[in-house]
């Protein structure tokens, strides 16, 4: 999976979870999405884990604060797979 594929799929999940009219870019962060609260964070994690068949490390989740951070994390975990 290329980084671009991961980015596009991640954007799709963000649109599905947050349903906001903001433009989703790699720089889009917690401060840009009003509905990005604890509950939606959990829903986001669950959907990303389903879509990319991975499990996030609980203690690294704290550092993921933008869409790009998630793309980098997923690319690191899944980037070498087909």
């Amino acid at each position, binding site marked *: 999976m290329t980084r671009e594929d991961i980015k596009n799929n991640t954007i799709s999940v963000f649109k599905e979870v947050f349903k906001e*009219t903001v433009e989703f870019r790699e720089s889009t962060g917690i401060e840009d999405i*009003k*509905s990005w*609260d*604890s*509950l939606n*964070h*959990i*829903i986001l*994690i*669950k959907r990303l884990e389903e879509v990319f068949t991975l499990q996030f*490390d*609980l*203690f690294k*989740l*704290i550092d993921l604060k933008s869409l790009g951070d998630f793309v980098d994390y997923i690319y690191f975990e899944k980037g070498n797979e087909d």
Partner: protein
Amino acid sequence: MNLIQKFYYSFKKFSGNRAFCINGQDISYAEFHEYINGARELLEREITGKNNPVGIVCFECIETYAAIFATWFSGNYFIPVNPKHPLERNMAVVGNTGARYVFSTKEDVGGIINTNKIRLLNINGLKSAVDKEPDVGNEQRMYVLTTSGSTGVPKYVPINLGNVTAYCTAFMQMFPELKSGISVLQTHDHTTDAAFTSYLLPLLAGACIYTLPEGQFKFLSIARLMSDKKVNWVKLTPSVLTYLSPYIPKLDLKHILHFGFGGEALPLSLVQKWRAVFPNAEISNFYGPTEATMNSTFYKFKNLDNVRALNGTIAIGKPFPGVECVIIDGEKNILGSGKEGELCIAGKQIMSGYLNSGHNPFVFFKLNGEEKKFYRTGDIVRMDKDGYYYFIGRVDDQVKIEGYRVNLIEVENAVRNLIPDSKVVAVAHEKIQGLKRLYIFIEGFTGETGEVKQKLIGQLPGQMVPEEIFTVPGFPFTSSGKVDRRKLEQDYLLKK
């Protein structure tokens, strides 16, 4: 010696101990006391007389805790201002409590508070070695908290020194294991009385308080701090464990000695799921409305095999020493064990009455020849034959969203103020299991629901902002003529 003086001497007695660990930085009791002196000096230069309300913008830093004690040591009382709440809400709090002076560690508080209406006192880094005994009378008020009101507008709950003294005395009697050497995790927002329980009692005991960093998801910070093996006493809302439940296999909390819960009903299944993660901890379930000062009852247990629970919810236990409870029916008759009714609480922890409100939440009963004033909690409970209480539900439309009291009528009123003459119904729904959010239904509304939500974000604390707003052609009704919230939930939320 009164409670405030006890704190003063506790800070001296434990001067070499760590009082706080904030963002990885240790602060001793001696240094904490210097921060208190600094804020107190500034306040006493600005303000005269006693029993003045003093606002504090509660950023998570040592100066905030110091400002709270500086307010008390100088004979005044604390009004918490939440930097995450909207300006309009904070100004209502400041206006209704009469706070004209507000402590802050930041000069730029735009969006939090309007500095044209108050005098901002900057305490960033402020310390002083000049120290003097607290100047406090027994009638001193300690704080005023804002709660969501069953009358549709917020209520202001004043709590005085006598109330807090009664609670602290009872707690220390029942929890002597909280002492110097213990590290307590403070997870609560300063606008709730749960926060007081996480730092007042440890500071009396010479323990250390770990606070959560700002700007991060709370449940993730809690997981990290608990797992670092730095804290051994924790008090949480059950919701936090619900958030962390997917990560149970990654967590090892064998070092936790005490796990306290409060703010919401505690599901037995949640504790059963988590028990193996903290096998050595004693568990306490605390219950109590803000009006009765922090906690009124508690249930302490270790063994899950014989835990007391009703309908899958763990007991709220027995009253703290000095607290009296009765259960009443709709005609104010006192009920015996096994019967469900409204819980009423008496004792020195009960507030004198709401600030600026004609609402009377009290009822009087003669017990053992003495007439006593009881606070009507609005909570429906049952007592078993051994005297243990169990939470069943509410007499009104109040719900708990992650430990915060939310009266649906207050949220409905906020919408009606934006759309006059509209028919509005609020519904609390578990978006995922164990975690509720609010949803608003407006009959025949033709405007933009997104705009309504944006306006509500500017007025209400986060837990009161609806997740979604629906326009409906008409409301369904129950056979008794009330709007059928369950049907709305079924049709619009469960079918999604």
